[in-house]
């Protein structure tokens, strides 16, 4: 039996172990990121869902200044505390738009009345169509869109208070 054949199993084992050791050391990241970072926001128009706020269209995201698009819902538990952080960002001058996924007007109105309303516009996405179009896989998620309508950053999960400086820096960079 040739030397290559005799030692091949051992070499393959070492490669396998290397891979498994890497996997044990690097925890599995189950987040699936959108591939649209660096791409223009897909064209869409969403109807309004709240009487006081206009709906959201892709054209509203290319007005010259960077905006934060927050994909959320009234039935989403982490969104409750995220609203507070979003209000902080709004106080610092960030323009925030919302996409309400699978939501009903009354439930949304009650949610915003209870927790705060940092949104300039809120679009209704009752069948997750625009959520899918953006490459988002859950709520809450946020997208930073620059003045020309290019998606610059995706945050999966709620924006925490500790994330605020990072978000502000990215918005600055998107100008």
């Amino acid at each position, binding site marked *: 039996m040739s030397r290559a054949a005799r030692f091949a199993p051992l070499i393959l084992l070492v490669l396998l172990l290397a891979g498994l050791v890497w996997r044990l050391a690097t925890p599995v990241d189950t987040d699936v990121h959108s591939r649209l970072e660096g791409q223009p926001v897909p064209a869409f128009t969403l109807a309004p869902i709240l009487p006081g706020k206009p709906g959201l269209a892709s054209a509203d995201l290319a007005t010259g200044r960077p905006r934060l698009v927050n994909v959320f*819902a009234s039935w989403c538990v982490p969104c409750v505390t995220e609203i507070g952080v979003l209000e902080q960002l709004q106080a610092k001058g960030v323009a925030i738009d919302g996409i309400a996924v699978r939501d009903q007007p009354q439930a949304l109105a009650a949610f915003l009345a209870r927790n705060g309303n940092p949104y300039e516009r809120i679009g209704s996405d009752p069948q997750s169509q625009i959520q899918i179009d953006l*490459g988002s896989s859950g709520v809450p998620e946020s997208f930073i869109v620059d003045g020309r309508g290019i998606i610059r950053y995706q945050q999966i999960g709620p924006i925490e208070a500790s994330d605020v400086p990072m978000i502000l820096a990215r918005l600055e960079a998107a100008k």
Partner: protein
Amino acid sequence: MLLCPIVATADSNLPPAYWSNRQLPDPRQEARADALMQEIRCLVCQGQSIADSDAELAGDMRDLVRRRIAQGQSPDQVRSWLIQRYGSWISYRPTSEPAAWPLWIAPLVLLGTGAILIRRRISTRRRP
């Protein structure tokens, strides 16, 4: 049986989209749509396809797939559209990107290596 516990907690109160749980009237289109849905991975219950998953997002994706197929798009077009947004992770069928080439080369390598190893074991000389 629901094997994906996330579904129980994060549930909106809206009903499923129309085409989530209904078949397209044209059986050939439905067959194409179903074949595609078996190959698209669910983003919520990541061990299942959207055809099998009970997650709401999976239902909305099924609705999306069926509507696009009904409009005349090919399964490959719909698959590409989804891969543009979520990356090749979302397709259970490996794409034709270079990162997937070893998958298709591996069986040939295995067969070839095996053939070389057994070459000496099997003699093709015709003994009288």
